[in-house]
């Protein structure tokens, strides 16, 4: 029989694979039948895509390791230049590792794809691999698009270029359509790793239950956890992390003796608000995981600790505060309303017609608009009560606000003559700043009239 023989693999190896990789039977089978046996030709390039944490890397790696195929796994994020990518592949193929002894130099140097292919051929012959398929796995392959333009098409037809039995496997989160270069290329075999559904997640997460509790107990916990987090997050890594973090809180009543393991309702009532809080804090990395653990141990309420975003308050000099407020007002108010807001004798404007809004959507939806420097200064003088002389200090404060990324410079063609700015602070931030200088900013905002 010339085609695929699964029977030739030792049965136990396949079984152990299936044990290690749950809920991925179909993918394992497809990949394996495509890879075939070592001396078979395999497809030149295989493109595997799927969501974050669907086991793309894990399945590929375990499969290649258990079947003992010669393979190289390279992460494209690490290799920010093509030279590093080539050298890492060659190093791994030779079993050469960078260390202190060899002063972190690679054994072979290749600057261009041409040299790489030549060296690869030599190396494969030296290692006696030419009657086997060598697998080159490129993880996070979306980075390849930003590297040299010949890299991606080159790797796609690597088998043809190197005239060796090689298969390149691309792993990515992004669909193949976004990879295709302008003039086309060799089309890879596309495989999809589907997301885990709820039952799969439950099964996988229930696997790592602590030995001191029963499996059912842990499964209930996972079920509750998924009930809270599943609508928001399907990332297995994140869920697993959250499960590990919040478990001590869950089993607390049991340890104290308040509830039995079967008392699901009570346990649920205990943990649910806790998990909701976790979503607002730990999930967004407002509070770090270690802080969260400490809080649980000390039995404090989760809100006690202020998260990262609370610390956003910045202490600024007096004039800088007013400059920032003026910038915010000129970013979010249309210029035609300036006269009404800031001039004492604004002539006769009917209040009703002024209040009639012309825009359908408010400016806080559309975002800040750019304004010229003159307008910023005009508003600044009208909101500051005392007399301010336009010294170099004032102007340098404006540029330092730009450096702090509270303002941005729009269109950097002209630095001196009439530059334009945008205010990039949030409403909460600016109201906090305005409160410190006793300025009621909401009264001056067009959106809130």
């Amino acid at each position, binding site marked *: 029989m010339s085609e695929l023989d699964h029977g030739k693999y030792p049965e136990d190896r396949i079984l152990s694979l299936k044990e290690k990789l749950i809920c991925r039977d179909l993918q394992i089978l497809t990949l394996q039948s495509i890879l075939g046996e070592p001396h078979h*030709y395999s497809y030149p390039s295989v493109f595997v895509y799927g*969501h974050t944490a669907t086991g793309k890397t894990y399945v590929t790696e375990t499969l290649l390791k258990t079947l003992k195929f010669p393979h190289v796994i390279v992460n494209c994020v690490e290799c920010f230049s093509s030279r590093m990518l080539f050298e890492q592949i060659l190093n791994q193929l030779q079993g050469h590792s960078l260390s202190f002894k060899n002063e972190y130099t690679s054994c072979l140097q290749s600057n261009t794809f*041409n040299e790489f292919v030549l060296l690869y051929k030599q190396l494969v012959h030296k290692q006696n691999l030419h009657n086997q398929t060598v697998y080159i796995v490129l993880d996070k392959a979306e980075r390849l698009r930003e590297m040299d333009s010949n890299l991606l098409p080159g790797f796609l037809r690597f088998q043809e*270029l190197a005239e060796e039995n090689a298969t390149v496997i691309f792993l990515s989160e992004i*669909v193949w359509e976004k990879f295709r270069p302008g003039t086309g290329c060799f089309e890879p075999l596309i495989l999809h790793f*589907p997301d885990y559904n709820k039952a799969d997640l439950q099964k996988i997460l229930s696997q790592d239950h602590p030995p001191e509790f029963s499996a059912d107990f842990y499964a209930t916990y996972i079920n509750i956890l998924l009930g809270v987090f599943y609508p928001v997050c399907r990332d297995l890594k994140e869920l697993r992390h959250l499960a590990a973090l919040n478990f001590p809180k869950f089993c607390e009543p049991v340890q104290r003796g308040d509830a039995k393991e079967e008392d699901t309702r009570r346990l649920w009532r205990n943990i649910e608000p806790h998990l909701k809080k976790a979503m607002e804090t730990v999930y967004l990395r407002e509070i770090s995981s270690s802080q969260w653990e400490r809080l649980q141990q000390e039995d404090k309420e989760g809100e006690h600790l202020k998260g990262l975003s609370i610390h956003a308050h910045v202490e600024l000099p007096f004039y800088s505060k007013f400059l920032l407020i003026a910038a915010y007002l000129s970013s979010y108010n249309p210029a035609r309303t300036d006269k009404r807001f800031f001039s004492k004798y604004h002539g006769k404007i009917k209040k009703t017609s002024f209040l009639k809004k012309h825009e359908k959507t408010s400016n806080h939806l559309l975002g800040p608009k750019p304004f010229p420097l003159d307008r910023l200064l005009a508003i600044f003088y009208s909101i500051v009560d005392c007399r301010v002389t336009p010294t170099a200090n004032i102007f340098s404060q404006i540029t330092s606000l730009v450096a702090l990324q509270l303002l*941005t410079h729009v269109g950097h063609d002209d630095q001196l003559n009439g530059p334009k700015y945008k205010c990039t602070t949030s409403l909460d931030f600016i109201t906090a700043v305005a409160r410190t200088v006793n300025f009621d900013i909401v009264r001056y905002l067009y959106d809130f009239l």
Partner: protein
Amino acid sequence: MILRARFCHHFPGKPFGLEAQYKNLMDLLKQTAVQGESNSVLIVGPRGVGKTMLLKSVLSELMEMKYIKENLLQVHLNGLLQTDDKIALKEITRQLQLENVVGDKVFGSFAENLAFLLEALKKGNRSNSRPVLFILDEFDLFAHHKNQTLLYNLLDVAQSAQTPVAVVGLTCRLDVLELLEKRVKSRFSHRQIHLLNTFGFQQYVEMFQQQLALPKEFPDERFAQEWNRNIQSLCKEKMVEDILQKHFNSSKDFRSLHMVLMLTLSHVTVSNPNIQPTDLLAASKQYMMDSKANLLHGLSVLEFCLIIAMKHLNSIYEGEPFNFEMVYNEFQNFIQRTSHSMHKFKKSVVLKAFEHLQQLELVKPMDGASVRTQKEYQLVKLLLDKSQIMDALQKYPQCPTDVHLWAASSLE
């Protein structure tokens, strides 16, 4: 094993339906090899039409002649590998094994190298020097080199009475001549061989059968006969024909056929030694899968809600770009309308979901300057079609009913 090699490695086989082009190229190369004429030719055709296969089969037939085998020198260059003239020149000297090459190391600067090479080529004349065959794969990439020096020199040698050379370029761009500079273009012989898929569906089915059939040299003769008979009966099935028709309509090239066949073959095992029509159906489904729908299927409910909100924004403002605040506002409207508070999330949680969508490149930022504006106000565009979203919604597992209704209520 044999079939694997055929699908994956693209062995030089007999070109299909390209007899005229085959003869044309054959004559041309023979003239260079035997009579010492200098020629240049471009083989143009879409991807996967068999340009390399044609060339390889012509070359292998040429090499069978003893005189040519001893005489002809071949230089293979690929636009993907030799990205500039310097590398290409080194590669030429390496492949020609010229005198200044010791081992595999080439010394001398670019200018010296070029001068040396040109000298070597110029010294020869029609009668007593060996002909050289230059094969330039991905010819259009060579035209992007600076000043097109390499192309100019190669074609110049081919023009003037020096060493007989044949320059064969393979490209998939039909407008490749527009890329060439005037002086390069004038030296090119303007001989083009176009390869186009000009066969009908009946031939496509024949091709399918021929590709799957086992050859006569197969060791186990009985099995081969049985296999081939099975393939023949397979081709007559209505279902198989329908699938093939579908593939034929989407593209005519053989690579996609090979891919489908490869996927089909992966279903064949010891317990299931013959190809069933259902195997082909499964493979074709796998091949035709819409990848974006797959990605949408894996999104969380919150992310899907955001996509629907974006779809609504798109239909209200007719494809204008939008920012996160607008999407959030739309989403908030939806939550206020529905009575129960199942989808009540903090704004930052929603922002995280939005960023995940950006990471998956379902949403594309309008301008690259991401540092300059806050992420809430960055203008983005949705890269999904309305029908794609609705289809994905139908297939979405355990979709809440109110989300369903909200998505359908776009026309207000």
